[in-house]
């Protein structure tokens, strides 16, 4: 087996981001095929990344209002 479990954890971002070479991708998958713990690790890692994508916070309404008001003011002063 080319990769150990430790190697797998170090390559997981490259794997999920599609940055592993074709050969390394095959070796990564071969390891997963035989290693339950690394399959669990990859599933958890992916779930964590998906949760990051859903945790984006928008600014508060008041802050948006204030910023847009300032931008409108700037537009008007630029036009006049």
């Amino acid at each position: 087996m080319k990769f150990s479990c430790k190697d797998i954890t170090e390559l997981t971002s490259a794997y999920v981001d599609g940055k592993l070479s074709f050969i390394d991708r095959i070796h990564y998958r071969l390891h997963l095929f035989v290693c339950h713990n690394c399959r669990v690790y990859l599933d958890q890692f992916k779930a964590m990344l998906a949760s990051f994508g859903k945790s984006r916070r928008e600014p508060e309404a008041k802050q948006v209002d204030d910023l847009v008001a300032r931008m409108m003011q700037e537009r008007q002063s630029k036009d006049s």
Partner: protein
Amino acid sequence: MDERALIQQLLAGDQQAYRTVVRSYHGAMVSMARAIAGAAVADDIVQDAWIAVVRALPRFEGRSSLRTWILQIVGNTAKTRRRREQRSVAAGDAAEVEGIALAGRFQPDGHWQLPPAHWGASSPEQLLEQDQLKGVIDQAIEKLPESQRTVLTLCDIEGVDMEDVCKILEVSESNGRVLLHRARTRVWNEIDKFQRGETK
């Protein structure tokens, strides 16, 4: 909404279009400003950058996405401010690239010594549903070294391309990817510790 249509609406002074871009990009702008010039001045920088966006919009040529263009303006505004205040650069600090989050979890031959815990919550929704767990994740991100937190926030939370992030922060893409992986691994480790009952 189609970006070209959005830009036309911004040029026409449509307030709703301005609200849309502020809601969409403000968070990423604050992260970028904070990384370059520090948390204390990040809000100021972003306010100045929004004004610069209004002024420069008629000259926007569409060679990059609107978000990338706006983030470049924030980057330039923040760098000017940093030079003025002579703050040292934190992004890409080599020391922050070092440090293995999973030290002690493997046997000498590279097999798991302490394998991943069983996570009661395993879907992204479940991870965010539990307030306590969400707090653990937020805290883990906040505790990351600055350059790691910035890359994770911009790429994984705000969805900005790694290439754009690295260009504006002036770090190599390979360094950026190392920072991102270290950040993700640290956060995973904190969630795992929580699931294991090691943190409350």
